C-alpha cells in the first residue's frame, strides 16, 4: 500500500479489518508482529519522524480538567514544540477548527463534536506533513462534517498528505483521491476512485419519440420514455447512439453517467476477499477496527 504525497487517502474496511491497528502501528501505539514499510522516508516506528505526523485517534479523550488551550500546550510540548511556536499555532489551529472562542473552557465540558474539533487542532498543531485521522467526523453534526471536509480539502491544497480512516463511506466519496479497502488485515483493493470504478462505469440515455431498438442493448420502455444503459467509461461511446436517436426524430431527455458508489466498491471488495458479510475475526471478538 502506498500513499502518495499531497493526497487524501481513505482507508476503508469492516470492523476488525485492522484499519485502526495499522494507524496505531504507524503511530507507535502498537508494536507490529510483522511489518515492513516506511513513513516519510523513515522506517515505521522511527520516533523522531512523528514530529512531522499529526494523529487524531478514534474516541480520543483529553484530560477533562484542562482547557482547550492547556490541552494543546500539553500535546504540542510532547511533540517537541517550544512555547512561542505553541502560542502562535494554538491560536491558528483553534481558529481553523472554529474553536477560538472556547480556548479558555475546560475540555470536559465540551460536546463530542467540539472535542473532535479540538482533536483536529491538536493533530494540526505541530504543522505536520502527514495527517492520520481515525474517524475524524465521529460525533460531529452535519454542518461540522461539511466544515471538516472543507478543512481536509484546504489541508490537501497546502500540500499535506492525509490518511482518513472512516466508516462513513458517503463522506469519504467526496474527499478521497486514493483509497484502499482492508479486509482481514489485507488490502483487497487499492487505487484511485476513478481507476477502481472505471470498469463499472456506464451511461444511461433516455429519450422520447424515436422507437429505436438495438439488438445488443436492452431498451426499457416507460410510457413515452425509452431508456438504454451503455457500458463503458468513455462518453465517446454514447455519441453514435445519440446521433441515431436524433436522426430518427427522437428528443434526448437525459444522458447520465452511472458510477459505482463507494459503498458498491466497498461491498465488491468484500466479495473479492470472500467476506461479503463484513465479519472479520476481530469484529467477532469485539475488537474495534
Amino acid at each position: 500500500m502506498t500513499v502518495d504525497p499531497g493526497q487524501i487517502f481513505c482507508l476503508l474496511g469492516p470492523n476488525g479489518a485492522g484499519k485502526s491497528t495499522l494507524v496505531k502501528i504507524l503511530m507507535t501505539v502498537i508494536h507490529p508482529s510483522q511489518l515492513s514499510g516506511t513513513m516519510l522516508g523513515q522506517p515505521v516506528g522511527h520516533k523522531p519522524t512523528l514530529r512531522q505526523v499529526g494523529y487524531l485517534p478514534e474516541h480520543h479523550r483529553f484530560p477533562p480538567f484542562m482547557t482547550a488551550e492547556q490541552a494543546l500546550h500539553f500535546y504540542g510540548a510532547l511533540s517537541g514544540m517550544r512555547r512561542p511556536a505553541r502560542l502562535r499555532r494554538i491560536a491558528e489551529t483553534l481558529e481553523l477548527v472554529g474553536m477560538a472562542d472556547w480556548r479558555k473552557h475546560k475540555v470536559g465540558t465540551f460536546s463530542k463534536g467540539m472535542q473532535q474539533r479540538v482533536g483536529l487542532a491538536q493533530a494540526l498543531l505541530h504543522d505536520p506533513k502527514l495527517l492520520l485521522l481515525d474517524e475524524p467526523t465521529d460525533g460531529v453534526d452535519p454542518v461540522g462534517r461539511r466544515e471538516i471536509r472543507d478543512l481536509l480539502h484546504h489541508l490537501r491544497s497546502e500540500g499535506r498528505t492525509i490518511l482518513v480512516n472512516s466508516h462513513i463511506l458517503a463522506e469519504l466519496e467526496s474527499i478521497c483521491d486514493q483509497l484502499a479497502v482492508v479486509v482481514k488485515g489485507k488490502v483487497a483493493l487499492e487505487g484511485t476512485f476513478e481507476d477502481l470504478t472505471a470498469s463499472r462505469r456506464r451511461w444511461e440515455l433516455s429519450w422520447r419519440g424515436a422507437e429505436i431498438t438495438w439488438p445488443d442493448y436492452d431498451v426499457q420502455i416507460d410510457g413515452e420514455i425509452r431508456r438504454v444503459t451503455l457500458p463503458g467509461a468513455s462518453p465517446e461511446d454514447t455519441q453514435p447512439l445519440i446521433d441515431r436517436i436524433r436522426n430518427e426524430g427522437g428528443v434526448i431527455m437525459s444522458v447520465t453517467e452511472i458510477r459505482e458508489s463507494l459503498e458498491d466498491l466497498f461491498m465488491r471488495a468484500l466479495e473479492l476477499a470472500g467476506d461479503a458479510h463484513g465479519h472479520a475475526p476481530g469484529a467477532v471478538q469485539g475488537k474495534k477496527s
Partner: protein
Amino acid sequence: MTAILAILRESWLSLRAEKLFKVVMGLNILVIVGFASIGFDKTGVTIFFGLSHIESEFVFAGSPLARTLYMGIYSAFIVNIWLAWAASILALVSTSSIFPSFLSQGAVELVLSRPTRRSTIFLVKYCGGLLFVMLQVSVFTVGAFFAAGWRVGEWDPAIFLAIPLITLFYSYLFCINALAGILTRSTLVALLVTLLFWFSTFGIRTADDILTRFTLMFEARVERLEKQVGNLQLEVKTAEADGDDVATKDAEHWLIEPEDDLALAKQGVAQLAPWKTVIGGVRAITPETARTIGLLHRALERDSDTTLQQLLSGDAFRDDDESPRDLNDEQIADQELAKREENISPWLIIGKSLIFEVVILGIAMMIFRRRDY
C-alpha cells in the same frame, strides 16, 4: 526537556483538579495549626493557644525537655501518624487513578503517538504522581518549621528532611501502585494492591521485630542463666570438695530449676531461629517504610540528651546519680533492639528500599514500553 515539563505540568493540573488534593491540603493546615497551638509557659504546657493548661515541673518554657516534647510530638505523632499513615492513605486514594486513567483508551494514544520515548513518559508520569505527596509535605513542613521556631525557638532545618523522607517512603508504595495500575488499568485494584502490600510490609516488619525481640530476650535469659548455673555449679563443686553432703545436696537442689530454665531458653532461641531467618529474609527484600520515617526521628533527636521515649517513660526525670535499675530480660531485649535500630545505616535503609523500588519500576516500565494500546 519541553516534554518533561509538559508532563509535570499536566500532573500538577491533574492534582489541582482533584478535590481530595484540596481536602488533604486543608487537613494538613489544620494539623499544623493544632501543632502550633501547643505552647509552653513558666509553669507547664499550654494547648489550643492557651485554652487548656497542664502544669509540669520539668516541661516548661525554656526547658530542654520542652524542646524534646515539642519536636517529639512532631516526629513521633504528627509525622508518624498523620503524614505516614492518614495523609498517605488519602494520597494513595488520590493518585491511584494516575496510571489507569492515563492508560485509558483514547487518552494513551494521544500521548504515545508523540516523539517522546515511552520510558521518559513513564518516569516523568511517575514523578508527577509523587508531586502530590511532595507538595503536601512541603507545605506541612514549612508550617512545622515556623511553629517549632515560634514555640520552642528551634529553627531546625532538619524538619525539612520530612520532605524527601516522606516522599521516599511514599515512593515505595507508589511504585507498587504504578505497577498494579499498568497491569490492571483499574484504579480500585491498584489501590487495593498497594494497601495490601503496605499492610504486608507492616506485618512482616512487626513479625520480624517481635521475633528479634523474643530472640534477644531468650539470649539475654540464656546469658543470665548460664552465669547463674555457672555460679551454682561452682557452689556444688566447692561443697563436694569440702565433703559437705548437706551443702552439696542443697546446692544441687538449687541448680535444677535454673538448668531447666536454661534448657528452655536455649530451646526457645533454637525454635525461633528458622522463623527469624525466613521472616528476616523476606524483610531484607521489602522496602523499609517505617525505618525510612524513623530517619527523621534520628535527625531531630541527634543533639538532644533526652528522647521522647525517655520523656514518656519517665526515665528523663531520674537523677543522674540514681543507681541504674536492674533490667529484666524484656528490658534488655528492648534496649538491644533500640540500639540495633539506631546503628542501622541510613544508606542501608534507603539503599535497599530504593533497590526494591528500582526493580518494581523496571518491571512496570518494561510492561508499559512493550504493551500495545
